[in-house]
């Protein structure tokens, strides 16, 4: 195992919890992530074909506003990138690489990275959010949504991992 200089997960968890609490306090909603990429998909579709984007009822929620890109979650994701970049650079943890399980071919990894992402993108829309918007934020609100999502996610993840051991282990 290679050495790493990550913080204790409990310290990082306390920091993340305080950040989430500050978000509820200041703006009145929680942290989020997946909707930024759904919004970008909607804006991207409209750039390529405004007529087709107009027929997609689901994307209307992002596109029927004055400036779709002036979106809270999108700016928060910009901040997330900067914060993680600062953390990895300052700790010497930044490495340009194509990360994968040892022994996996690059082509296979390209496929798993993309198809896994597609499942996540689809599932996040169905669930009204992801690990951030539903699990973390809903969980902290003691909302049923957050807890049923977390339980379903872990059960499914354990089953997947049992059948596809070579994906990561």
């Amino acid at each position, binding site marked *: 195992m290679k050495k790493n200089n*990550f913080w204790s*997960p*409990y310290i*990082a*968890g306390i920091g993340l919890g305080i950040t*989430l*609490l500050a978000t*509820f*306090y200041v*703006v009145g909603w*929680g942290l989020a*992530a997946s909707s930024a*990429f*759904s919004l970008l998909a909607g804006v991207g*579709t409209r750039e390529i074909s405004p007529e087709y984007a107009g027929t997609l*009822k*689901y994307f209307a929620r992002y596109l029927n506003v004055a400036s779709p890109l002036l979106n*809270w979650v999108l*700016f*928060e*994701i*910009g*901040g*997330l*990138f900067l*914060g*993680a970049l*600062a953390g*990895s650079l300052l700790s010497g*943890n930044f490495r340009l*690489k194509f990360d*994968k*399980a040892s022994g996996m071919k690059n082509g296979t990894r390209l496929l*798993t*990275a993309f*198809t*896994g*992402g597609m*499942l*996540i*993108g*689809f599932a*996040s829309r*169905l669930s*009204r959010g*992801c*690990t*951030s918007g539903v699990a973390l934020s809903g969980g902290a*609100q*003691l909302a*049923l*949504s*957050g807890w*049923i*999502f977390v339980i379903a*996610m872990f059960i*499914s993840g354990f089953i*997947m*991992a049992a059948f596809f051991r070579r994906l*990561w282990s």
Partner: protein
Amino acid sequence: MTAPFVLTQDISLLSAVILGIFFGLFLERGGLGDPHKLTGVFYLTDFAVPKVMFTAIVVAAAGLHVLSDIGLLDMSRVWIVPTFFWPQIVGGAIFGAGFVISGYCPGTAVAGFASGRLDALVTLAGIAAGSLVFAVAYPYIEVFYMSSPMGKSVLPAIFKVSHWQVIAILAGLAVVMFLIMEIFERRRRLS
């Protein structure tokens, strides 16, 4: 003045960037930009994900209800994540599969990309593509998407107990879970 606040668009977007920076910093420093650590929980090798996640949930839940109880935060103006029972069960299950296959979730993929992982950028493209698939398929799945609505259901109301009883149980379960995870990780290091 009681929180949450009514902000101008400029201040709101500025708050998004600042809060996002801390979000990203703690994710990356907690090791959650690394897909090996992220998937470790599913292979019972590394429990960084549940440790960070459940610590954060308990801290934020306790803080939220303290602020609400002492009147500094008006909980009725906090947007509660709505429950759609079956869509969120099915969504969570599909999400778990995507998590193990890609090695990331949306926020952690951004943290992974920010720490130099180009595969995380591929996953982010996949997430956008999956969102587009959802939007295209929406007319066919809208009935299921809107099914089993339960509104702002929260555990204390469902179990007819106080929010502090729920938080105490969650905190207790988290501590027991963390102890078991520490024993598991120690065994692996020794073996």
